[in-house]
């Protein structure tokens, strides 16, 4: 079995599910012959036909709303937003209808749809192509927000997202689309939604993160270990509905917590986690919670990009600071 990248794992999951479920179809911009601008749908039009891989007119609002119509009629649409920075026109349709129809109709109509979007910065892309905006969706009831951070998790969680009877926003950290490879058996085995994944065990500090920052956080944990600091790394993966128990159990053990994310600090999803840590784990903590995030500024153009994104050093400093404070 050849090792594959995260973006190849996305394509593998899409192909598996299309092969095994006729109601699955893909729609978006450039998803057909071009295979998506990141090639996440590469070869799928040729394999499954233009009826199931549909290049839509270039209007995000239309694509989002039509996804809802398809889903209500019993299809399982996987809609691609070309970049998370272009998903904003979809917000009304997703929030007012996609995430809401089940509740509005008391379960009469449902929306088993997935909105995929390449997410986050770090690839020297043009303006508006690097947004990390998962927190905007995490505040929408009835919606799952999922961010995989490895090829295996991208494969297993995308399968789970497509099979889920409710709408899912599936943000793909494009900075690590092709960073690492791993063997991902194409066995159709889904991974569980709504649970955190513990990527590294540790006893001294809990590092909570998701998306591309999993990479820097794991590197920080590795480097900290050389200093004798044993960090536990939790990949939240499904932001909402949140599995806070896994985080709380870890903090009960480590007594220290650092939250790492790329999005702006204020009202970022780290704020939600920090609030819950205070609500639930205050007496376990030996030091204040630390957050390592993007600043409350716009994602800069590419020259300043690395100044914006959390770095290994910043994460290590925060871990050292919280340990020193106790």
């Amino acid at each position, binding site marked *: 079995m050849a090792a594959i990248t995260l973006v190849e794992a996305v394509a593998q999951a899409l192909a598996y599910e299309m092969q095994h479920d006729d109601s699955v179809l893909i729609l978006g911009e450039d998803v057909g012959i071009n295979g998506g601008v990141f090639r996440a749908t590469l070869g799928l039009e040729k394999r499954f036909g233009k009826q199931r891989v*549909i290049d839509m007119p270039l209007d995000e609002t239309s694509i989002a709303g039509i996804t809802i119509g*398809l*889903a209500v*009629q019993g299809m399982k649409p996987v809609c691609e937003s070309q970049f998370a920075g272009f998903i904003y026109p979809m917000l009304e349709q997703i929030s007012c*209808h996609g995430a809401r129809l089940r509740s509005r109709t008391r379960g009469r109509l449902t929306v088993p749809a997935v909105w995929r979007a390449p997410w986050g910065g770090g690839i020297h892309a043009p303006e508006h192509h690097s947004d990390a905006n998962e927190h905007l969706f995490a505040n929408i009831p*009835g919606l799952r927000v999922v961010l995989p951070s490895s090829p295996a998790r991208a494969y297993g969680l995308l399968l789970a997202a497509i099979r889920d*009877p409710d709408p899912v926003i599936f943000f793909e950290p494009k900075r690590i689309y092709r960073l690492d490879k791993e063997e991902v058996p194409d066995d159709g085995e889904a991974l569980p939604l709504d649970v955190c994944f513990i990527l590294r065990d540790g006893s001294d500090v809990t590092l909570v993160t998701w998306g591309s920052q999993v990479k820097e956080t794991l590197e920080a944990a590795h480097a900290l270990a050389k200093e004798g600091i044993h960090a536990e790394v939790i990949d939240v993966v499904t932001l909402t509905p949140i599995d806070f128990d896994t985080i709380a159990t870890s903090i009960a053990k480590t007594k220290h917590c650092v939250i790492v994310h790329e999005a702006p600090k204020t009202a970022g999803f780290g704020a939600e986690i920090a609030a819950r840590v205070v609500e639930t784990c205050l007496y376990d903590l030996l030091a204040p919670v630390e957050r390592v995030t993007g600043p409350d500024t716009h994602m800069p153009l590419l020259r300043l990009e690395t100044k914006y994104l959390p770095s290994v050093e910043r994460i290590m400093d925060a871990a050292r600071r919280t340990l020193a404070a106790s």
Partner: protein
Amino acid sequence: MSVITTFKIEYVQYLDAEGKETRNDLPAFTKDLDHMVALYKSMFSTRVFDAKAVSLQRTGKLGTYPSCLGHEAAHIGIGSAMRAEDVLAPSYRESGIQLYRGVQPREIYLYWGGDERGSDYQHEPARHDFPCAVPIATQCLHAAGSALAFKLRGEKRVAVCTLGDGGTSKGDFYGAINVAGAQNLPLVAVIINNQWAISVPRQKQSGATTLAQKGIAANLYCVQVDGNDLIAVRKTVNDALERARAGKGGSVIEAVTYRLSDHTTVDDARRYRDDREVEEAWTKEPMKRLRHWLLGKGVWDDAKEEAWKNACDRRMEDETMAYLETKTQPVTALFDYTFAQLPVDLARQREDALSREKLHG
């Protein structure tokens, strides 16, 4: 100079304001006078339903309600042209179409009375229709998506969205008709142009001579119709549906009518529109002309009208009782329809709400 393309918009009317036939080629369905009486009765019951809703709000028994007074011909024309297997994606003012497709008056009262179960329509074909959309024109795309599903599966079904004149300003409407044209979808968009989007008149929405012509750019079949003429609406929508069903593509129909009511029960239209305009609109309202036409055919009379009015009044009283007697949902209903299965975190919030309920009621 060479001309690449030109367009024209046909205006369809069969009955004038007095119920006189304005052309001699009435559609075949008008020969079935029993059916025509039944359609008139549906328009009549819609008006009784609507008046009851307004009076319920005025007496504190219903929340804000958007009246459809004056839209009866448009509504019953659309509803009666559709087949059961078609799908309706309405805006919030389309109670008449919904009632025709099997939504119960008590369900609409329940919805505007503040209970989500009012959108859990129990009877087909409404059971597979969309609930009314409150955000403007968003429903057009749900219809387009439904139409795409029908086309992909080879089903001979049509998706119908209805929207107001204001709704045609929104991108969701343009997007829906654009996709319908590009992909030859069985989509029929009916604009119920009642001249007012709350306080903003039709002329301020668009410089277009007709709203129907907005579909020309999408290469759809576009017609303007007298929205107060049941026969014209029914015929035009029926033609559009059959075109779509035959794979010949989508349509935009503009039904020109008038909002005889306030925007909703919390609006006061006298603040922004002239009483004389409303008085003038009343002379063209849809019930009178069809009644005159049926009277002329000898199939309707005052006694029948009185009997039907009484029957409608009794029905709406029964429906009102059923609505008012429907107990409020338990607090757990806040949570139980958010996801197919209650996530752990939400289950805890549900437990909290339940314990608060036990403590404080």
